[in-house]
């Protein structure tokens, strides 16, 4: 996927990985995922609904997450997403990829003037 930088500095494509990551602990509904991302990142990421829902639709179509209607703690109905085994495997793959990439990027960025 093309590294399309969205406002907020989030590289397109990593959003999918981040969503999968938030779901490892427990099923969440759409708003919950957004809040969780914001909390964990310390307010660094604010995911708009316009990005979140298309991403969820794609993940669901790909069979990485599955949606289920449930009642929230505030007694409303909401669609909760949970990770499928396939999604878990995908997250593992993407994490590995991300680690190796970010490591490489980090090395380059940490290079001293002499190494360049």
């Amino acid at each position, binding site marked *: 996927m093309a590294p399309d930088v969205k406002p907020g500095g989030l590289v397109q494509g990593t959003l999918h990985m981040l969503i999968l990551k938030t779901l490892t602990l427990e099923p969440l509904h759409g*708003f919950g995922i957004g809040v969780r991302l914001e909390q964990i990142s310390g307010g660094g990421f604010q995911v708009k*609904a316009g990005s979140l*829902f*298309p991403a969820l639709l794609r993940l669901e*179509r*790909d*069979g990485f997450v599955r949606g289920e209607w449930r009642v*929230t703690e505030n007694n*409303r109905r909401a*669609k909760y997403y949970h990770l499928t085994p396939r999604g878990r495997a995908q997250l593992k793959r993407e994490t590995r990829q991300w680690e190796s990439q970010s490591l490489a990027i980090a090395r380059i960025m940490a290079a001293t003037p002499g190494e360049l």
Partner: protein
Amino acid sequence: MPRLTRFLGGLTALFRRTRAEQELDEELRAYLAASVDAKIEAGMTRDDAERAARIEFGGLEAVKDETRDAGWETSVEQLWRDVRYAARTLRKSPAFSAVVILTLTLGIGANTSIFSAVNAILLRALPVERPDELIALTALYPNGPEPFSYPAYRTLATDGARVADALAASTTRREAVAIDGPPEAVDLKWVSGNYFTALGVPAATGRLLIPADDPQPPGVAVTAISEAFWTRRFGRDPAVIGRGVRLRGTTFVIVGVVGRGFTSETPGESVDLWMPLTSQPGAPGFLWNGHSSTWLRVLARRRPGVDLAQARAALDSAYVRVRDDIAAKADTAKVRESALASRLDVAEASRGVSRMRDTLATPLIVLMAIVGLVLLVACANLATLMLTRAVARRPEIAMCLALGAGRARLIRQGTIEALMLAALGGAGGFLVAFWGTSVIASLMSGVLPMALDIHPDARVLAFAATAACATAVFFGLLPTLFATRVEPHGALDGGKRSGRGGRGIRGASSGSRSSRVPFGRTLVAIQIAVSLVLLLSAGLFVRSLMNLKEIDLGFDPARVVLFPVRPTVSGAQAMPPDMRRQLIRDRLERAASVPGVEAVSASSSGLLSSDRWRNVVAVDGFTPPEGVTPRSWVNAITPAYFDVTRIALLRGRAFSDGDGPQTPKAAIVNEAFVRQFIGGPSPSNAPVPSPEASPLGRRVSLCRSDPCDPSTATTMEIVGVVENAKYSDLREIAPPMLYIAFTQHTQNLNEIQVRATGDADVASTLYRALAAGDGRLAITGMMSASERVEASLVAPAMAAKLSSAFGLLALALAAVGLSGLVAYMTTQRTKEIGVRIALGATRRDVRRLVLGHTIRLVVIGAVLGIPAALAMARLLSGLLYQVDPYDPLAISLSVAVLVCVALASAYLPTQRAARIDPVKALRMD
């Protein structure tokens, strides 16, 4: 897997649209609610929280759109919407749609019909197992291809057995057979026993010939019959197996019917009976030993795993042995030399072998080009139509663009519209082709063998579909591409001139006039050019046909009926020459006794038939130039032949009943013979005969060897000279001709000619009278001499008819296109013309203005068209008879017709322009 789930998810969403919509809506609302709850919890008032949540969320519909777009199903939905929109648009203007669909139906129909013929003759594979394994073997001599002798075939089959299974077949022959009754004519083919097994043709019923049928002498002679013959003669009676077919005294037992629509290894040939070639009754010994008789075509099926190059290599070395054998057995040095110079040609033969393919390839390709050009003209017309419509729809398009529709979307919309029209036109065209092929079949009867199935098949369907798509691109996509190149503000300005040089329609109009109907002028010029090409082709074909019709035949075909005859028994024992003559005399007497018959004759070569005989001759006082053997066509005739055919006797006498086996041998020659061998211009190093030298009394010999050996030659005295007459082909210059008396030679007479006194139809009475004679001589057909002349003109007549029809069609289309364009331009310029008139321009000035346009278009079209037309004429030159491809008359006539039609079609719009009322024109919009 993910791809599949994605696809299924999309499919579910497509079919449960409302449910998916509701769910999405509910989910988004839940998100908003949760957001509001969170904000209230954080200490906002409800109102503030709601507002903040909405601002954060963005537009509900926009989010929905983005989410929907994440799946593939939306593009399908859009497509469906576009299709429905296009259908609606087309329904709204039924006249426009009808014109487009009708034009395309005719255009694609004509192309598909011609393509069906191309497909059947040039492209279709034989209906056999794995046709791509078949190869054709031909011996290429310095003078051209030659069939094989039986020993040559045997050598090739045995020596090449490792690489290929070779089969042999004779050409079809018209023979008379008896099947429990009087003799009847059938088309018979002699084949090797492995013919069907090697080709891979199954039996419809019974069995076909097998290699075991080959041995000689056969235990039981067998035959396989074609499905068509089974239907025609036996009404598909399964009890046909075991019935006997008597041919020249031998009974052949029918063992099976050929299946799967197989007609022959030569497409288009129709065969009734296949018989093992080794069972030929009364075959002379030289057929089996030696190479004097070459009568077999050889095809082979490559063994599995053998490619063409390997097969070629192995068969080449087998052919070397054949060649050496021919050379060793040759009588003369000449035969030896040409045999040693020959080589084997091994070619791919999945479509069978066909001489027809060679003769028809050029005419068919020309025809295909002609109909293709007609379709081009039709498309150009439609493109103009679409363009004018697109111009009219520009404000609508500009509105769409202003509202945010992408250009790509609009182009897709336009293309879908065009594709829908083209699909309807293509479907119509395919249906037209079903009818069109029968028209072609009837037009080409005589050229095309009856057995050829030219009905559309899957390949033709694919062709029609491709043609439809191509036309859609041409007449639909191009105008759409242009029409969507609009800047909204310019076009929306409407009648007010933008004056800022914007690319809106009015903005452009102030600049150049031509861009009002952008490339409409180009399209019309192309139409004119193509029409010119087609008109010239038609003109040339018509001139060629006229020349052919005016050919002096040398004989008079009117009121002459021809009856091919065939002996039903063979062998010198069964039919000594005297008996054959007596049988013919008997038939001639029977025919002469029919009331209304003027004269009756018979000859060995029929009038204008391909069945002809050429022989080495020697003429007293004529020394041929070095290396040239004098040859003449020879025809054995009965005394009344010249009375029946009305070939004029110039000097001397015709044969009479007095010319018998005991009297001195007599001969009659034609003018060409005299000119070539006796008097008139002769090759430079030959002795020049004196002009007074009379041909009468001169001795001429019919030789049995080359060069002529006087001891074996038959010498005759020339007793008469007749006028030249066409012998087998109307186009050829009359060749030297030697007529001999049938009583003095042993040739079989193969045709009876009868001249009737009046126009009364005596043909059927004659047929009955002739057919009732001795069964050893069978009448195998009946045709009037005029019909035979017509038949030899079928191909040129068809070319003239079709090219004229298509040329006129193209011209009509171009006229409509031109007239439409001029009318449209006039409408566009009404105001300007009004101003001109108001400022003092006369009606004549206006007329000149509009006509000037037309003339410019015609000139451009002609400038483009004349070189193209000349190129086309060059391509046609091989198909024309005594017409110069650059025939000035045809060229000037076609240009004149074009100019007249162009001016006539511009007349109405011009008149309308001249009648413009300046007051009304200036008040417009």
